[in-house]
Structure formats: structure tokens, C-alpha cells
């Protein structure tokens, strides 16, 4: 059985490419070793802290390869998919929200879920941060103290107790989110919180854990019962807002006929100028055929790029070499926070998103590379990680039309 499109990687770019292809009635297979970066992300879409990056990207930046039109189209279609799943993403291209982080710094994002919208720092109404006693991954006191340095109408943090946290181990955001999915649990929470909220501001920030399956329903239920607005703040992984994006994209992909296999080690090879793929499940190797192969295996963090002790770097699926200085000390900065030169290491591509070999020629005409494996962007410094993922996914699927 041959596929029109075979995608490698189940992160944001791979899943989104899968949705786009399936929605265009392509026969699509998505193969991945494991889930991708959504589970550790913030669940927001950052395109660029500085909008001029999209308008006038440096020539070797992924934005230069995908083009402005792809960005606009990608964001539009992403919003449609999210809205259809009942989890609308708010915002518009070219503008950024400024939202509080769990340390009280401000972070920027272009599209954010409705569960975070009330955290918009440009709004004048006072707000307070709440922590869940016994939950270690969010310190409202620390975040609030930093926010108060900059924002005067911010009030003291409050404690909102959560009933029924796991008692034999520490709880994670996912534990709490699963509780919030239950209406009866939310009723208990409302009763428990009511006394603590007397006199509190009508905007309350919480660690991002307001439900996995029905976050919006949970948010609205509590808001209307208590007469206030809630907003989520991204915290240490696992990321509940990221899991929601993963779930909705996976469902959309599969509902449109896409086939998803997560688990095997995916190996690629280039034979006679054509990219071919096999999947190894505990030694059982299966070949898959496809017209077009889209490599969305991610950067170093996601396992798409591998750096060797001897200074050689290559992609983990096809073994394509990556240009980098031979001296490892040139990869990083002496400052932990960077910027680090390795951030820009990756596959160079042309405007069709075909990876280029050392001579600047496409490694294989039927191969595309998208997302965090692309060279030329310092995603952390630019705030461009998700923008690159969505726009390159959109562009790659467009090239297969």
C-alpha cells in the first residue's frame, strides 16, 4: 500500500501537516517514535516577538523559505481546526499577547487558547495569582512578587485548596486537569474556593491545569458559579495546554482519514535519489512507500538532530549531515541563557523545503523538512518556534499539491 504523503514526527509541525494533508484528501501516514514537543510546550503559538522577522526575514531563516503567504494561511487554517474542535485559539497574525509566566516575567504569543485570554497583561483590571497548596510546580508568591515590581494593580497571591489530590505521590498538572474534567469535582472546588475568594479581584491566574478533555467547559462552569474570570499560566512540563493541542490535532488527523503509528523507530534512506522509509518495531522492520516524505523529527530536544562526541552532527532519520563548527566549544555560549550558536544548526532547505546537500542540491526530490529541524533560526530568542512549525508544515503540504 502506497501513501501520498508520509510524515515522520508527531510534534506540532508533523501533526499539523498531517491534518492539512488529510483534509486535502491525501492518503497520509504519520510515523513517530514517540509524541513530540507539544507535551512540553506552553500550548500557545509564538510567531515572532518582533513582527519584522516575518516581514523581512534574514535570507537563511526558515521564514524566508516558507514565505509570508504560508504564514497567514497556516495560522488561518490552524485556527479553523482548533475552533472546529471546540478549543478556539484567539489572536491575529502580526500582533502579540503579553502574558505572565510562572516566575512573573512576561512572555509573548500570537495565538493563545481561550483559557489564557484573561491573563492579557495589557488589560487594566486588577488580578491575583492563586496557588494550589501541595502542588509544587507553581509558586504564586514568587511569580506575584515579580509581577508587582512592574504592575501596581496586581494583588497579593491567594491559596485555593484542591480536594482529592493524589495522596501517595506528588501530583502533576495532568492529575489536576483530569479532576477538573469532572463536573462533580468542579462543584466541590467551587464550594471550597468560595470563602477564599471573598474580596479577591475578579481576574484570577492559576497554574495551567483546568481540564484536559473539556477545558473551556470547566473554565466557564467555575467562572459563572464564582462570578469571576480565570486564566491559565503555563508551568513546568507536562504541559496540559500542549496535551490539548496534541489531542485535538491527532483527532482531526484521524477523523479525516489519516493513519497514525506512534512507537517504532523510524529509519529513512535515500535510494536512487528517492527517500524511502521503514519502521522498526522491536526488530520487526516494515517498509512504507510514499510519493512525498515530510521529515518533522524536530531539533536536538526532540531527537531529530544528534550531535556526536567527535563534533559530527546529523539528522537521526536519514543521517543527513549538518554543517557545524568542528570544535564543540563553538556550539555553546559560556552563559547558560545563551544565545547559543547550536540553536541555528539544522537542515538547510530551498523554497520547496527540500533539504539540501553540501553542494546546495536537493538530497532527494520527494523529501521535505519542516519544523524545528530547519536551520537558521534561534527560536528561543525570536519567539518563533511554533510559527516556523505551522508555516513550514503548511508550505510543505502545499508543495505536494
Amino acid at each position: 500500500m502506497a501513501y501520498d504523503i508520509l510524515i515522520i514526527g508527531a510534534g506540532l509541525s508533523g501533526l499539523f501537516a498531517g491534518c492539512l494533508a488529510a483534509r486535502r484528501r491525501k492518503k497520509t501516514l504519520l510515523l513517530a517514535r514517540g509524541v513530540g514537543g507539544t507535551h512540553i510546550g506552553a500550548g500557545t503559538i509564538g510567531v515572532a516577538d518582533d513582527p519584522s522577522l516575518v516581514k523581512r526575514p534574514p535570507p537563511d531563516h526558515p521564514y524566508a523559505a516558507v514565505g509570508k503567504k504560508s504564514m497567514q494561511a497556516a495560522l488561518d487554517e490552524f485556527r479553523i481546526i482548533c475552533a472546529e474542535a471546540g478549543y478556539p485559539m484567539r489572536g491575529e497574525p502580526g500582533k502579540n499577547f503579553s502574558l505572565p509566566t510562572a516566575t512573573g516575567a512576561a512572555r509573548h504569543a500570537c495565538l493563545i487558547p481561550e483559557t489564557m485570554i484573561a491573563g492579557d497583561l495589557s488589560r487594566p483590571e486588577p488580578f491575583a495569582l492563586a496557588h494550589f497548596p501541595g502542588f509544587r510546580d507553581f509558586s504564586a508568591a514568587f511569580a506575584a512578587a515579580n509581577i508587582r515590581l512592574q504592575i501596581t494593580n496586581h494583588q497579593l497571591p491567594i491559596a485555593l485548596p484542591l480536594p482529592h489530590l493524589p495522596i501517595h505521590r506528588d501530583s502533576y498538572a495532568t492529575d489536576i486537569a483530569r479532576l477538573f474534567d469532572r463536573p462533580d469535582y468542579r462543584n466541590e472546588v467551587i464550594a471550597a474556593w468560595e470563602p477564599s475568594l471573598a474580596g479577591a479581584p475578579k481576574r484570577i491566574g492559576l497554574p495551567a491545569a483546568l481540564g484536559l478533555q473539556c477545558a473551556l467547559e470547566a473554565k466557564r462552569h467555575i467562572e459563572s458559579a464564582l462570578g469571576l474570570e480565570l486564566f491559565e499560566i503555563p508551568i513546568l512540563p507536562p504541559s496540559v495546554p500542549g496535551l490539548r493541542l496534541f489531542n485535538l490535532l491527532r483527532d482531526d488527523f484521524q477523523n479525516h482519514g489519516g493513519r497514525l503509528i506512534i512507537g517504532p523507530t523510524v529509519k529513512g534512506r535515500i535510494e536512487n535519489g528517492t527517500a524511502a522509509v521503514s519502521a522498526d518495531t522491536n526488530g520487526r522492520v516494515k517498509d512504507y512507500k510514499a510519493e512525498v516524505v515530510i521529515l518533522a523529527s524536530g531539533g536536538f530536544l526532540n531527537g531529530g538532530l544528534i550531535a556526536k562526541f567527535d563534533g559530527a552532527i546529523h539528522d537521526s532519520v536519514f543521517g543527513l549531515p549538518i554543517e557545524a563548527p568542528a570544535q564543540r566549544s563553538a556550539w555553546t555560549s559560556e552563559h547558560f541563557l545563551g544565545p547559543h550558536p547550536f540553536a541555528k544548526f539544522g537542515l538547510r532547505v530551498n523554497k520547496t523545503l527540500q533539504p539540501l546537500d553540501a553542494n546546495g542540491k536537493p538530497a532527494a526530490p520527494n523529501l521535505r523538512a519542516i519544523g524545528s529541524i530547519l536551520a537558521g533560526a534561534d527560536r528561543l530568542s525570536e519567539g518563533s518556534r511554533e510559527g516556523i512549525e505551522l508555516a513550514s508544515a503548511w508550505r510543505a503540504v502545499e508543495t505536494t499539491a
Partner: protein
Amino acid sequence: MKLSTEILILGGGATGLGAAWDAALRGFKTVLLEKGDLAHGTSGRYHGLLHSGGRYVLRDPQSARECAAENALLRRLMPSCIEDTGGLFVTAPADPADYADQFFAACKTCAVPVIETSPAEALQREPLLNPKITRAFRVEDASCDSFDALHLLARAVRAANGEVMLRHRVTQIIRSGNRIVGVTGENLVTGESFTIYADIVLNCAGAWAGRIAAMAGCEVKVTPGKGLMIAMNSRLVNTVINRCKPPSDGDIIVPVGTVSVIGTTDTAVPNPDKYAIEDWEVELLMAEGEQIIPSFRQHRALRAWAGVRPLYEDTKKEEQKDSRLMSRAHALLDHESRDGVAGMLSMVGGKFTTFRRMAQLLVDTACAKLGAERKCLTKDTLIDSPDAKLHTVSKRLASLESNKWHVASSTAQPPSHQIICECELVTRAQIESHLRESGSPILNDLRRDLRLGMGPCQAGFCAYRAVGIIHETLQLAPPISNSQLLQFLQERWKGERPVMWGHSLRSLEFDLHIYRNLLGVDTLPVEREIEVYPTEQTS
């Protein structure tokens, strides 16, 4: 602040704390000053090997004898920080074949316990060892947690009515004619100045001893010898492994807690506070590691760090270029006979394993100078409590499992058994109690005291949690908390940077994602600039 004491000790490493403990036990009024934290210098940056003496039997038989005796003694005096791993000397294919017989004979001469065993038995005990080893000898090496050891010593000093004052930096030595009578300095936490008068000053500042001596107008040439170590992400061996060959680079692997450490190199550096770790040094250790364990490179390197050995250079002798050839033995300098300056003794050089003996010599000499005849008691005084047992992460886990979660989770108080650092099983209660005791907001102190952030994730998760607790407990101004968080992350990074390949690079990108993208710490206001080579910190 002004005070006077009988014996004043400068330096809070193993030598200084050992001397303070010895002096306090003899009933002297004793004060110890340290400019950083306990184990801030070389004692906190060594590979953790309690020498059997085997390593020195051929080159330095005197040191070998001392190590063997002290090793046996310390196991009894401070069992909670010594793991009886045992040691092996193995002859790898690249090692000189004739060394093994000389080694064996010299061990007998130096009273270093040794048993020859077969390579097959050694391999059975340590399956990752190079199968091509030709000889193997069992010795009584052990693994010692120097952070725990120094905390115990400080407690013992205080229990004997001695004082240990941390973050007190000496800036001047007070002389009256040709006699040293005290020191002045600065409390780095409060900014207050202090003056301490003493009958005698013991300079135990290790690699920094030359600076102290210079303040007294004496020249003591101490060459900082940089020794590199790399921690690998698991216990590759459960026994200390030594190469059976003349001592050189990367010939020892020590299992320490949950990791194993390979060491060391030896390069003279000009400044004990500021030195870089270079790619070639890392490569050298990795290559030598492969000689002992062929699969060495396939394991994840966690971090690399260096300690600076205080190598004493006798200015009267010819210049010695190779710092490994300089004496590892200690030198006791009497500045009265040497420089005509009374009231100060310097102890330079030496090694962790023999710290007690060095302290005894030093305090014996001080007694003679003070005209006091008091017997040394350290040989027969437990440093640990009598029922102390080896402290391990598995014990921490057992204690957590047996008494955790008694507090109902819905109460307003966070459960005290909550685990903040999952790698080293550090609980909220431990952090809060450390903070109550020390009042120090410095995350690196929590690391040295509790091992917070020292495990496989290198503080990826716990740094945020811990800074929140510090902030809540000590009620700090946010820029102070922010600075502490960033300086801690920078400190972890300093050790990780030299081993950035494979999974380490992946882990770095993960940590950057957490701290920059999710938490935005790069935009937080700080109280002080983050130092790339932090030497000492104040609040």
C-alpha cells in the same frame, strides 16, 4: 564585630575543618573563617576517593603508609559519608606489564592491604571492565562524600565549642612588630567588617594559602594544579577502579552516590578562581575511560568540573614544571623560623584522605608554639553519631516511603515530604529546615548541603521549585531570588558545557526551553550581574 580567640583557622576545607576540630577537642578556644561555603574550594571538587594508599606505593611510600592508616581510621570515625566500595588496580593492555609486580611488592612494604585476584574474578565483580585486563589487585579504596564529610566536621567543631564562620573573608592580617596577632575582614553576607585577635593563626587556605601568606608579608608559592573530573550518569562500576601503572591522567573511576566519576588531569593554572575546562581535557578523560571500560563513551556524561590542588613549591628548590611531580605530600611552614614572622603556621598541599593527620601535626606544632601540652584526641573521637550508617539515596527513598503523606492533601500546609528534587530525593522539609538553620538564600548552598540539583536532570525541574520555597520562606525581594536562580543555573551550566554532545545537548535544549520559553527568566530583574566564574556570593 571584634573578638579574640586562642586559635584562628583560615579556610573551611578538609584541612581547616580538621584543624578546627582537633584544636577544639584539645580545649582551645577556636574560630574558623571561610570566605565561601563549606567545601567551597578544592575539598568539594574532588573525585570522592578515600585512598587505600595503593596509588602512592611506588612514588611516595610515606604518603601510601599515611593513606592506609587514615583510611582505616576514618571509616570508623565518620561511617555515614564513606561507602566501602573496595578498590581494584587493573592492568589494561596499554599499561606497562612490569608495573604490576613492583606495585604488589611495594604495597607489602608500605603496609597497604592488597590481594591479587584473577582478571576473571574482577570481571565478574565489574562486568563493564575491559575484558582484556591481564592483572587485578583488590585494595581498600572507598568512596567518600566530601560535602557530607565537611558538614559533619563543622558540626563536630561546633559541638566542641568551636566556631565556624562562613562567608567571612579575610582582607588584612594584623601584625604587631614581627608577630601576627589577628585578622580583619568582611562578613560577605552583611557587609560588616570584623576583627579577630588570636594567639596563633593557622593558614589552611589550600590553593589560596599563598594569598593569605602574602598578607602577612611572607612568600609561599602555591601552584594551583587544575584536576579535571567528569561525572557519568550512572554507577558504571560499584568498585573504585585504578589503572595499575604510574599515576597519570584519567586513571581512576570512583562510584559516588548515583553516578561515577572519572579523574583526573593535572595542569598548573595561574589563578585558582578562574580557569576554563578545555575540549582536549575532556577528550583525554573520555579516551582513558575507554581503556578501563570499553563502552565508556556510550554512557551520558553529566558534567565536568575541576578542582585546584594546592601544590607547594619550595622556592629554594629548582623550578618544577609538571605539577603532578610536585609533592602531593603536605608541607607545614613555620613562618617564625622560615620568614621571621611569629604567630602563624601554614599547612599547604596534602590530600583529603590524610586531613586528620595533617590537622594533628599542625595543632601539635601550634601547641608547642603556645607552650601548651595537650594531647590530640581526634584518633579516638567519633565525628559521626555512634549509630550513624552510610547515607544513600535508597535510604532516603525508604524513609520517604515509610512515613510520607500523613498530612491530608487538602489542608493548607504543603506536605513536608513533598519531593522537590526528584533525582536526589530532596524534600520540602529538608529545604525548609536548611533555610531556617542557615538563613542563606543561596541555592548553591542547598546543593552542597542537600545534593539538590546534582542528579541526572541537573536542576532542570527543581531549581524553579526550590527558588519558590526560598522566596516564600525568607520573604526576599524578587531581584534577590531571581539572581539566586540565575546564578544557580549558571553554576550547573559551567559543569555541563564541556560535555555538550548527544543527550547532554538535548537536555540543555530542554532546560533552556523551560527557563527561557516557559518561565522567561532571561527577562527578570536581577540584583547583581550573573558571574560566569562565580567565586563567592553574598545575598
